[in-house]
């Protein structure tokens, strides 16, 4: 696939659109279908598409396996950390009501942050698993 010019050119058009769509899904999850998980999958698939067309090596210059692993850990830490913040500010674990002055705002902040954590972890885990498979030598 690497040598097919049509595929390569279309990918230049497609990949930014896919990334943008991933961000839309991430932040529009409160109002329509979507959320961190779906956004993460779409985000990862854009980079996987890039890797398929331009080779895993050049994709790894953008996001390396190690970076993906670190991001996955950070996403999980972000999620768990939001819960700890709720605990420190006087609520139970994962209590979002205490995150802001009124409960509704607190819930919004909490959901936004944990969805970010979900998206980050899912995108980087899927990418890292894809790398691990493609780089595996028989």
């Amino acid at each position, binding site marked *: 696939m690497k040598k097919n010019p049509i595929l390569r050119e279309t990918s230049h058009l497609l990949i930014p659109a896919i990334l943008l769509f991933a961000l839309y899904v991430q932040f529009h999850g409160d109002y329509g279908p979507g959320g961190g998980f779906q956004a993460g999958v779409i985000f990862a698939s854009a980079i996987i598409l890039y890797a398929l067309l331009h080779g895993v090596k050049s994709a790894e210059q953008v996001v390396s396996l190690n970076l993906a*692993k*670190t991001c*996955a*850990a*950070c996403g*999980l*830490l972000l999620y*768990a*950390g939001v*819960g*700890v913040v*709720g*605990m420190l500010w006087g*609520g*139970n*674990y*994962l*209590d*979002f*009501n205490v995150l802001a002055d009124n409960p509704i705002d607190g819930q919004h902040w909490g959901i936004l942050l944990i969805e970010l954590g979900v998206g980050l972890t899912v995108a980087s885990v899927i990418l890292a698993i894809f790398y691990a498979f493609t780089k595996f030598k028989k």
Partner: protein
Amino acid sequence: MHTPALQVIIPLIAAPLCCLLPKSRLAWLFTTLVSLSTFAISVLLVWQVHSVGVIDYEMGSWPAPLGIKYHIDSLSAFILILISAIASITLLGARSIIEQEVSHRKHALFYTAFLLCLTGLLGIVATNDAFNVFVFLEISSLSTYALIAMGRNRKALMAAYEYLIMGTIGATFILIGIGLLYMQTGTLNMFDLHDRMPIIGGFNSVHAGFAFFTVGIFLKLALFPLHQWLPNAYTFAPSMVSVFLAATATKVALYLLYRVFYTVFGFEFSFSTLHLGAVLLPLSIVAIIVSSLIAIFQSDVKRLLAYSSLAQIGYMTLGVSLQTQAGLIASMINLFNHAFIKGALFMCLACLAYSIKTTSCEHMAGIAKTEPCVAAAIVVGGIALIGLPPTAGFISKWYIVLAVLETSWWLAIVVVLTSLLAVVYVWRVVEQMYLCHPIDNIQQGTPVPMMLLSCTWVMIFLSVYFGIDNRFPVRMATMAAEVLMP
């Protein structure tokens, strides 16, 4: 107080941190500290349960059927302290042997997987939400598959794959069971499920849900005839993983059995309406006899102990099948004591694996001369496994025989006779160690590191200590049985 949440959250947060650590020794130190702190918290929980009674903790401050609730009663606290204690002792001794058995670059990931497994097991025990159990079950299972596959023999991969297939079928069956119950009750909280169990109509789904729970839990518990995955998994896993799994994984499945059949379905429904006892009793007896017989003919001691574990699981379910409070107490005491005894014995094998690089019975010939400390530990552990005084194994057997005598005398004879089978397989190993001459001259192995040896002896000490002073497990088991069978 946030103790119930912290119990699970601390290892959960520690896992992603651990995988970022660069140095293997640092990862080990970090993991050990984390598991020691979970142990401290579980001690605190036991103390709290003792002084103030049951602890409820609402995740996200949402009340129970809406959100997820943690519920720590004496049963949960009992199992939590068992898991975290075993994890701590295992990890303290684990560094040298893991350095030998697992390739150096994988260490940080290996300890991360260990922490995740610990998180999963603790989460299953602490939670009071049926679906949450499924999620944490999968966390612990997935990390277990990876840990088993780290064994050096390529058979470890196949063992892990088999376990993955069987374990996933089991978990999916549990998921179907949860779905059927949820359909008839509209809730996922365990107490709520019990209260809203349909009185008229919807019996079929509840019965089928019961059946799916039974098969799923039996698969995870490795109860005969669903045990095929266990011997290979225990035999080919890295030594320390065998120690941890043998001492905790099936115990958590047994906890799940108590919870589902006593708390969710209720004693009356499980045993009077649906005759769970009539299913459990023959399966337990067959498990005890068949597994003990197979254990006698094993040439690898690790596999021998795996089959002996299957027999011990039989004793635990036998206690449940008696349908009395005494039987339930006996089952829990067995669970607690066996975790330490089997953990200790597998740890002895870890010492041998470090020293002479094998656990096969014939290579252990004459080991008493070169490794006297390890050989002595195996003898004490073996005595506990058979159930002779003054070890914890004796207390287990004592309680089970007493409970069995309440119902029938011939069952008591079966229990005593099958203990004799244990004498046979333990004697085979002891004879090999003390009375046989070494088969060749490669016996002079690497000396066992102090840390590993002393942790082994701590486990051995505990499995003798709970035979002399059995107040803690007996009191906890009695309290737990009173919660389950009021």
